[in-house]
């Protein structure tokens, strides 16, 4: 059994309970209905979460954060490699040059830098090879670039896992590539730490428990917004001591554009379709499941609008970032041939991605049947308002939680109201029920909440938190 089959996958999205006010914004946006309010705090059902970060985007209190390693950890190694995607460079305003960005990375303490899309030709050829020589099921093949969409498919569209391209993402490839280059320099592998600066939680989760892969190849994950802030603070003072090292001359046009919408599509000859944004991805996967897509050879999916330029750890505006990225790409040559890098290509192969269906009511179908019938009867009583005040994303989700014994009828505030009117429950008891779900004293006066008298913005900020510029 490989890791992808285990239920306990690694998750990079976390909740800081002290910041969470259980405002329910996150409940509604989660594509897999993974969030519930318990004891007055949002909690994530691990098996369902695909680390897409929609909750992180939606939270007005910045209670969601992305787990990462401390920057100081790089100094555990003699040689410190910063591995980052092209979007990292493109998100800076025009007055900050590429040279300055690279220089600051060195100033921070990295000894080597590498853009993850550098060896992209290896991946392009490998995906083509997969499409032509390995894949023998129904079209289309689906890109496995965006780990949030890969996990979404595993959890919500398990029948479509067969369509996934069985190749690693560029960051894995780049990590192997860097290891190779370091070896050429005569550096002992144990002396080198490779740190990945990522645009999103999904990639962190993927790096920590890769789908269809045994072990991750990077040594740590660094918060992109933290590095962003450092570059913004230090870039102006940097002088031109930059020297073009670290194989930066291998950056290619295709590589730079890879993580944006149509980036992969451009490298693919057949008929292909590029879809970005979680809700769009869902729509297209539904249609694919229905057998209602015209013949397409390749389906490129990105959970974020504008692809990785819209990643949750990105500080820059996604449209400006994508625009700069397109301009930047024009300065670089087309990707060179991957001949001579066959050993790298080998590293790209992954085992088939296993389905992880998480929406069933019971593992036993008979029991699932009974539960569904019960949930349908419960739905006759619930108001159908989908208000979230019960702590579940919708009335139906509450009904299903009830048949799984994870919630009760009195969690519905309207039912409680009705039962009080009918004299089935005392006001005292009803209120205690509310407190059970929402936390004690939750309904006391509090002027620090959003829009109230003493609202002071977003409250305490996380260290290194990104200022949303959407």
């Amino acid at each position, binding site marked *: 059994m490989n890791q992808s089959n285990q239920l306990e996958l690694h998750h990079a999205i976390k909740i800081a309970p002290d910041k969470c006010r259980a405002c329910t914004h996150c409940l509604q946006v989660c594509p897999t209905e993974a969030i519930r309010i318990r004891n007055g705090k949002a909690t994530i059902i691990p098996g369902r979460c695909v680390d897409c970060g929609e909750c992180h985007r939606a939270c007005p209190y910045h209670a969601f954060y992305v787990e990462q390693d401390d920057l100081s950890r790089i100094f555990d190694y003699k040689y410190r490699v910063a591995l980052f995607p092209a979007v990292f460079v493109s998100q800076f305003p025009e007055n900050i040059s590429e040279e300055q960005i690279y220089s600051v990375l060195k100033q921070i303490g990295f000894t080597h830098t590498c853009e993850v899309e550098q060896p992209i030709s290896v991946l392009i050829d490998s995906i083509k090879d997969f499409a032509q020589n390995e894949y023998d099921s129904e079209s289309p093949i689906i890109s496995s670039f965006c780990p949030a969409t890969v996990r979404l498919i595993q959890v919500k569209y*398990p*029948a479509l896992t067969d369509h996934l391209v069985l190749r690693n993402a560029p960051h894995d490839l780049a990590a192997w590539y860097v290891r190779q280059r370091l070896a050429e320099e005569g550096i002992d592998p144990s002396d080198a730490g490779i740190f990945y600066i990522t645009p999103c939680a999904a990639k962190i989760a993927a790096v920590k428990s890769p789908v269809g892969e045994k072990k991750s190849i990077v040594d740590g994950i660094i918060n992109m917004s933290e590095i962003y802030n450092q570059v913004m603070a230090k870039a102006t003072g940097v002088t031109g001591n930059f020297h073009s090292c670290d194989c930066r001359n291998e950056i290619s046009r295709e590589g730079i554009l890879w993580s944006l919408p149509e980036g992969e599509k451009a490298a693919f000859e057949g008929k292909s379709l590029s879809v970005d944004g979680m809700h769009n991805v869902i729509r297209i996967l*539904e249609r694919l*499941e*229905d*057998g*209602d897509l*015209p013949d397409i050879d390749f389906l490129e999916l990105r959970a974020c609008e504008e692809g990785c330029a819209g990643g949750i750890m990105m500080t820059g505006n996604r449209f400006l970032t994508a625009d700069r990225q397109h301009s930047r790409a024009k300065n670089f040559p087309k990707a060179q041939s991957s001949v001579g890098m066959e050993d790298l290509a080998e590293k790209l192969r992954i085992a088939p991605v296993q*389905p992880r*269906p998480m*929406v*069933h*009511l*019971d*593992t*036993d*179908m*008979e029991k*699932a*049947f009974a539960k*569904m*019938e019960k949930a*349908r009867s419960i739905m006759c009583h619930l108001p159908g308002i989908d208000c979230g005040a019960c702590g579940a994303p919708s009335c139906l989700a509450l009904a*299903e939680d009830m048949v799984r014994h994870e919630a009760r009828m009195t969690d519905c505030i309207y039912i409680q109201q009705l039962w009080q009117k009918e004299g089935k429950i005392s006001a005292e008891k009803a209120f205690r029920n509310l407190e059970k779900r929402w936390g004690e004293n939750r309904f006391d006066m509090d002027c620090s909440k959003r829009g109230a008298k003493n609202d002071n913005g977003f409250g305490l900020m996380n260290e290194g938190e990104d200022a949303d510029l959407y």
Partner: protein
Amino acid sequence: MKLNFQVEGGNFAKAGVASSEVKKVLKKLGVPPMVIRRIVVALYEAEVNIVAHAQQGIISVDVRHDKVEIELRDKGPGIGDISQAMQEGFSTASEEVRAMGFGAGMGLPNIKKNADELNIESKVGEGTTVHITNYFAKP
């Protein structure tokens, strides 16, 4: 468990409502993903057929413990020669409908490919009734 849906002929914006509901239910029951896929493809195709050709229709889906039985009844032109309609590439869809990407003649053959059991009755000028049965496990 019975699920019923009304289908409006000519309204492509609503085509697929029945199949997406049925899909949700089957996923929650834990029916094997590949089994669901076949059912949904067959149902979707049949549903779109009603939208494309008929004035209106009713879909009744009976979800049992071991199988799904689907009946699609429509009021419409009916099919004159069913065996001819079963051949790939045959279509009576209007130019308009074809331009929208529907009715390319994939309909019945595709339903047949994805249904374990398929039965079609039709009267020209009155309508068509399609029965689809798919089993959760191979008998």
